[in-house]
């Protein structure tokens, strides 16, 4: 039966090829020629990728290192600086490298913000080794962030600053703002940062105390290796690699797509380890006990109550975000005491807020548009 069907297909195909004599045949031939040309380019690009893998030039926006503390770096990017209030961008610690925010020219969040005239500072937490295993979330909030904020004020000469937290950087920034209300932060943007960890989806379930013993995990492994972090994220979306491979094959003929793919793929496969104690506190206090949202954290002897945040607030959630589902991001709106606050939910997933064509059209202009009149 299978062979018979295949014969039918071949017959129909040849009839279609030769059967039309009123000009449609030429169009038909052209369509197939185009398709064959695409196939040829697919194979040529595939051969190039295999024989000489490209090294994408990421992070090209000019910048200057203004401060360093252990592995962490504070970078200031060149811009026209038309806005008076500088912006400190706090990304995730561990998991991945921050060059995703400055991936390629014309597809870079940082380039977008600097073109919009923001005095943009990026906190790069760095890649931690076993010597940093004692670093905790509390250290980040009480020892690294205050210093970075003061360096931003010092080097910019401004009296106030804005903070933008992405992913894990948002709850860390929120904890900092809550513990240090005296720091002159005028605006805070939470992009896809989980706040209410009782609504955090699959990670919340897998890391539940009933199933995951974080203390045994950290005591055994010390540093949480990058491969382990990778395995966790791959498990979250097991079909992602198949889908990526299929889309790559489909677009392999397109050189522009390939350039973006190579850069994004480099980032997506470069995982970063967690310092052991950081991971312990992150999982136990945030995921398992939801202490940030409940106001039960104390960092550096100071209470961490989100209600102490009173600056202007902009929260951005992504509809299909499976790392930080929109409901756990949106939760910040209900606990702060800010009088001016706004929440938007954009299409796409966690990464599509900061990379890709959708981000540059749907997300970045909204963020810069909200910040500009307040800066």
């Amino acid at each position, binding site marked *: 039966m299978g062979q018979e069907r295949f014969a039918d297909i071949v017959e129909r195909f040849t009839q279609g090829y030769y059967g039309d004599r009123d000009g449609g045949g030429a169009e038909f031939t052209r369509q197939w020629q185009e*398709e064959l040309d695409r196939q040829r380019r697919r194979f040529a690009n595939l051969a190039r990728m295999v024989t000489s893998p490209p090294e994408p030039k990421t992070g090209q926006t000019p910048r200057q290192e203004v401060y360093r503390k252990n592995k962490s770096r504070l970078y200031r990017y060149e811009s026209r600086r038309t806005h008076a209030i500088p912006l400190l961008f706090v990304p995730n610690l561990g998991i991945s490298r921050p060059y995703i925010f400055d991936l390629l020219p014309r597809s870079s969040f940082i380039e977008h913000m600097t073109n919009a005239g923001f005095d943009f500072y990026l906190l790069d937490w760095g890649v931690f080794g076993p010597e940093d295993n004692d670093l905790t979330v509390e250290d980040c909030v009480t020892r690294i962030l205050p210093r970075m904020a003061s360096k931003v004020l010092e080097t910019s000469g401004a009296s106030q600053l804005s903070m933008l937290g992405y992913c894990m950087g948002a709850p860390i920034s929120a904890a900092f703002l809550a513990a240090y209300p005296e720091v002159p932060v005028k605006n805070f943007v939470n992009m896809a940062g989980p706040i209410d960890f009782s609504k955090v989806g699959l990670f919340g379930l897998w890391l539940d105390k009933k199933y995951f013993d974080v203390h045994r995990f950290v005591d*055994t*492994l010390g540093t949480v290796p990058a491969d382990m972090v990778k395995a966790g994220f791959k498990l979250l979306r097991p079909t992602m690699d198949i889908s990526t491979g299929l889309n790559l094959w489909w677009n392999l003929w397109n050189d522009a797509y390939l350039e973006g793919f190579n850069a994004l793929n480099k980032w997506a496969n470069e995982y970063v380890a967690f310092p052991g104690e950081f991971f312990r506190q992150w999982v136990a206090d945030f995921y398992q006990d939801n202490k940030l949202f409940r106001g039960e954290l104390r960092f550096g002897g100071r209470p961490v109550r989100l209600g102490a945040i009173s600056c202007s607030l902009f929260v951005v959630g992504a509809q299909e975000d499976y790392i930080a589902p929109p409901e756990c991001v949106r939760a910040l709106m209900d606990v702060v005491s800010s009088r001016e606050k706004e929440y938007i939910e954009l299409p796409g997933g966690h990464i599509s807020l900061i990379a890709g064509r959708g981000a540059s059209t749907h997300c970045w202009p909204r963020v810069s548009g909200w910040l500009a009149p307040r800066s």
Partner: protein
Amino acid sequence: MADSTTQQMFDLWKRQLDESTQAWARLMTETSASPPPDAGAFWRPIVDQGLQTWARVAAQAPMTPDVMTQWKQLMDQAIEAWSRALGQVMGTDAFAQVLGRTLDQFLVTGGPLKKAADQSMEAALQALNLPSRGQVTDVAKQIIGLEERVDGVEDALGAIMRRLNDISRTLAGQPERAGASEESR
């Protein structure tokens, strides 16, 4: 025509995957012993439906390169359906429990192995008069601690400088104020 047939095929795929998801979810959550699933019975309807619909599509119109687009759409929808199906299974307590147990097993077996490997490596390096990883890490920790102290000193100096500036500003303002009050008298 071809589009509607393709849509029918997608619908059949989706229905089949939804049913299989439920079957897998039941399998994961069932505690009592149940007969093993027939893998052939699971795949056969999907493959048959796919082949039949494909043949029907091909028989209805000349094959243009659009068939590639249809194939891509079919694959995208199938992957999405699988992703949703796996997501449903992975979102169960049973899956979280299995995952937790697997990780525990890994730690129980891997932990002592890692410790033994670390100890023997340290002994070997010591015999060769070379620093071990732990010793290098300790040195790095001391440097980090030193940097922290320097930062503390820098902070304290900054605070002293700010205080001195405040005092000097206050002192510089005092004669002016004194002069002004003399004049007003």
